């Protein structure tokens, strides 16, 4: 029994059946295909035994948003129980082809991104093609898919580095501080502008940005229950990032889901407790968490130009799961003229790959309905959110453009 399994088993006894989790669960509120965190978590867990059939499939309808963990008054780790239960189902029955495909975000990104991206985007925007994919694979024909970029973020970064080197050969700038940027699959293949903004912000704060070798954090595999494959990805990331962490160089990411996976989800769900895994986890930061730490030490560059805007902001579930408050609100409050209205809705409904699935798409849209109404009601033509799949879902549900908050901060640096 690994440490997480032990803590999960022990946390079962902390459940006092008060149903606060079920009352707060955004999925149970809109469908009874998911009976609620209490039932599939601490209650069903008592009937899950190695070598025995899984007692109930409904755990697959858990979106993994972790709202239950946040509201539980007694500290039961419900979301982790559910994730492990799903992995047990996958271990017994195998991963459905559809899930095996959508969980490999890096592979799909690599195949989509490049000069042929317009063709890919046309194909994915072509209704009959989406209809066929829906029928054959079970990816809902209306689900929000990102638009592939013609050039990857890493390609941009390499070109930029070459041109910087060409301009000032032999005299590399010597910033006193370095960070490793963890871009994740979405920034690399779909939204390179997020990475460009992150590089601009970090450089304005005197950091040299290192683009270390890295791979997918493995979250899509984890949330689809494919733990063995997720483990390979996480161990590869630990190998690639550890040398930097050992030298005291922090790993900073813009995808709050990737940073949460490196910090906690992968080690905890996979039961990885080596010193190396801990070191990488402890050295990884969500970018606004990192900037807030700088601000706390009076080291943040606050020479912002005014941004006279009022924007709706949705703190995604994965950010809340860091349990670090609202660093975006803390930092963007320093920008003159900028005002954010925080969404009070728990979840946008997409939950990574959850809302893409044919049988779960409508649940995702129903979960997100409150957030969509909030964003539309703001009258703004732009919404902010720290997680990529949530941004795509918000735009899908509202028609309102969405950006990562780092893009606004980069604008404020001018």
């Amino acid at each position: 029994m690994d440490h997480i399994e032990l803590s999960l088993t022990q946390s079962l006894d902390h459940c006092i059946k008060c149903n606060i989790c079920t009352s707060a669960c955004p999925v149970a509120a809109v469908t009874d295909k998911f009976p609620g965190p209490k039932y599939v978590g601490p209650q069903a867990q008592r009937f899950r035994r190695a070598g025995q059939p899984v007692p109930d499939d409904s755990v697959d309808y858990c979106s993994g948003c972790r709202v239950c963990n946040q509201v539980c008054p007694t500290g039961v780790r419900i979301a982790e129980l559910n994730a492990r239960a799903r992995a047990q189902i996958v271990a017994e029955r195998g991963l459905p082809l559809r899930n095996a495909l959508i969980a490999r975000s890096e592979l799909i990104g690599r195949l989509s991104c490049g000069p042929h991206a317009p063709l890919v985007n046309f194909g994915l925007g072509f209704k009959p093609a989406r209809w066929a994919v829906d029928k054959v694979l079970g990816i809902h024909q209306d689900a929000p898919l990102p638009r592939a970029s013609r050039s990857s973020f890493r390609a941009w970064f390499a070109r930029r580095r070459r041109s910087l080197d060409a301009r000032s050969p032999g005299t590399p700038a010597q910033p006193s501080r370095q960070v490793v940027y963890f871009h994740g699959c979405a920034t690399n293949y779909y939204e390179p502008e997020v990475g460009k903004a992150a590089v601009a912000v970090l450089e304005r704060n005197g950091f040299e940005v290192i683009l270390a070798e890295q791979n997918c954090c493995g979250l899509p595999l984890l949330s689809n229950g494919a733990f063995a494959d997720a483990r390979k990805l996480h161990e590869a990331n630990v190998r690639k990032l550890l040398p930097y962490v050992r030298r005291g160089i922090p790993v900073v990411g813009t995808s709050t889901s990737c940073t949460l996976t490196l910090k906690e989800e992968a080690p905890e769900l996979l039961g990885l407790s080596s010193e190396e895994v801990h070191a990488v986890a402890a050295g990884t930061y969500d970018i606004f968490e990192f900037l807030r730490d700088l601000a706390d030490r009076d080291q943040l560059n606050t020479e912002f130009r005014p941004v006279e805007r009022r924007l709706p902001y949705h703190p995604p579930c994965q950010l809340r799961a860091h349990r670090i408050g609202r660093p975006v609100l803390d930092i963007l409050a320093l920008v003159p003229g900028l005002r954010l209205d925080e969404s009070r809705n728990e979840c946008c409904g997409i939950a990574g790959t959850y809302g893409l699935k044919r049988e779960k798409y409508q649940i995702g849209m129903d979960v997100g309905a409150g957030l969509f109404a909030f964003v539309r009601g703001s009258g703004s033509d732009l919404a902010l959110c720290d997680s990529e799949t949530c941004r795509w879902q918000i735009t899908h549900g509202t028609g309102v453009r969405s950006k990562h908050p780092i893009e606004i901060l980069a604008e404020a640096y001018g």
Partner: protein
Amino acid sequence: MHYDTIVIGAGLAGLMAALARAERGERVLLLAKGHGTTHWTSGCIDLLDAGDDPLAAIGRLAAEQPEHPYALAGTVALEQGLERLRAACEAAGYPLAGSPGRNVRLPTALGALRPTCLLPATMVAGEARQLADGRPTLIAGFHELRDFFPPLIAANLRDQGLHAEAAYLGLPPVERSHEFGPMIFARLFERTDFRAAIGEQLATLVRRGGYARVGLPAVLGVRRATEVVRDLQARAGALVFEIPTLPTSVPGVRLFQALHDAFLAAGGRVQLGSFVLRGEGAAATLTVIISEAAAREQRHRALRFVLATGGVAGGGLRADHTGVLQETALGLPVRAPGGPSEWFAPRFLDEAGHPIFRAGIAVDDQLRPLDAAGRVAYHNVAVAGSAIAGCDPIREGCLEGVAIATGWKAGLL
């Protein structure tokens, strides 16, 4: 980030303290492990289970027990806190009825009559003196809602000389086939089509039985409960009142939301899922508190702190395996009644209650925590709610009153 005040705990005491400080213009962070005991309790405000006039009884109690939280908080903080709570509920379209000078009795989900003081308008028609007016009362519910049995409630009310009958209502067609908790019902009751179908059944029952009023489980809407009750009354042709259910308590959630909304409107920040592990300070001044977070701990700085993490029941106090009581957030010294052998009365439902529930943090009249020698442990910490020693809030029937009085006082200091 630097805050003026950090409040630990999101129950009634913590919410009141956080609201008071935010409305003074402070930067306030409300940090909590999860949702607080609001979600477990009736949604009514108990002041003291002692006769008809709780306010007068609190005055006498304070004179007799100078270390009781009510004595330390003072009645001004209690009355001001109650006024602020009423205003917050009023602003949420969810007015509270009653007066601090008068206890009323309301039926529970077992049909017992329980004293309380302030009550939501949605429960007023179930007040015991009205039930005793000789006209018949219908108690109605749903087979689908667990732990709420109209026949049991009505039978117990009849045993107390009240004219009550029971009926189960048919569930109107909804897209659900199973899983009907209180919050699910509360959301259904916000739908007009659902209310119309229920109202029709109630009207038939009321016509046949000549009922003056109908008691329903307290699941009549989340954010629009007053409106839902008014609408049901019009449809049923009788008064409608709510009876608190077992947790999750929808009226408790409404109280939480009213105060939470008021706190956010005053510029406050809320962070849930954050268990406070310990504090750091020097020279009896707390400077930093540390909460559990992904991969590493989070440090929070503030000028002052309010500890509102609850007592034994709320999780603010924990016994370790050696029988030592710990205060979980800051490790403050706990005043407990001797060793484990002295914690419990011999009988489970002992009239005098169990001594362990009087355990807590000893505080001075500024609600500052005291150490074993009676010295102030931290000058910039106030303790509020059930975490304070010297009171068994559930047994004494003062859970909400003590939370409001001490929470508001912590906000004024």
